[in-house]
């Protein structure tokens, strides 16, 4: 039981994610989390104004069910399957984050400096979350997929477009962390 309550090593987690991808293929679907964002736009009636959202969203219901399950899975894992342990981060990462002004690094899943309500409702806090979310939503649809659709499914099926997209993910991520973070924090 302790093996489950401790954080899982990468060589257990990675293959488990591949099994998720494979199960969905076996069910005749494909693994792609960001498609749900488009589906939600369509449910909200965006198809009346923008043709990109004019499709039969009911055919995507299964994917919304996966999302619902993922939220329940997150709840179960966090509340019942986890010993309270700090994230085993590199000491240099902790030092770098301390320098940027982050405290108690790794004692929770996310930094309270960004996700605690009192910080969310500062101007800087709300801008970071909304701009970050906007870029994820815009970029993922522009690129035709996110980490699940391109990095896992696309690379597993050896598709060149997915490799280009994943290279893009890293170009963006590296620019943000190495050049923009020092300005922001």
């Amino acid at each position, binding site marked *: 039981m302790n093996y489950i309550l401790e*954080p899982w090593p990468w060589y257990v987690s990675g293959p488990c994610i591949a099994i998720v991808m494979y199960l969905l293929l076996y069910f005749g679907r494909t693994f792609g989390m960001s498609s749900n964002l488009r589906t939600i736009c369509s449910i909200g009636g965006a198809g009346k104004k923008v043709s990109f959202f004019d499709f039969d969203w009911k055919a995507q219901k299964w994917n919304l069910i996966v999302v619902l399950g993922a*939220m*329940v899975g997150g709840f179960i894992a966090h509340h019942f399957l986890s010993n309270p342990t700090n994230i085993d*981060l590199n000491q240099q990462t902790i030092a770098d984050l301390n320098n940027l002004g982050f405290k108690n690094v790794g004692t929770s899943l996310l930094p309270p400096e960004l996700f605690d309500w009192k910080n969310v409702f500062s101007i800087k806090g709300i801008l970071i979350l909304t701009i970050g*979310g906007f870029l994820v939503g815009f970029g993922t649809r522009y690129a035709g997929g996110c980490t*699940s659709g391109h990095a896992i499914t696309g*690379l597993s099926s050896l598709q060149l477009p997915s490799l280009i997209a994943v290279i*893009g993910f890293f170009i963006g*991520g590296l620019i943000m962390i190495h050049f923009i973070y020092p300005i922001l924090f």
Partner: protein
Amino acid sequence: MTKYIKFFAVGIFFGIVLVKSEAVSWYRIFEMFKFQSFHMYGIIGSAVFTGVLLLLISKKQKTKTIEGQLIRVPKKDKGFKRYLIGGSIFGLGWALSGACPGPMYILVGTGVFSMLIVIAAAIFGTYMYGVIKDKLPH
């Protein structure tokens, strides 16, 4: 309703795996982009390695889906610009919010309700892509 239970179950498993692997953690994403840990690369690398193997085996065995067709992954459209530019925009957002579309939902499940703001912004971002998509290079 019963046909959806399997999707719900897969989702639960997915959520548990991503929390237990710490792949939903903002800190792990930061560490990855700093190249200071193998953890995230190990997760993605071993996922892709296993995925390639599973797809090769099912191609050889001509494994069928529960609906009777051969298992296959839909081909992505050909292109370069959309993948590089779109991917880079996604990467900027991923590193800023520390969450990609799967973990966003999973984190709400763990009780981080401020993530709902990120999700709302991501929905709006997707909507704006749909609005201006014909003006963008693809």
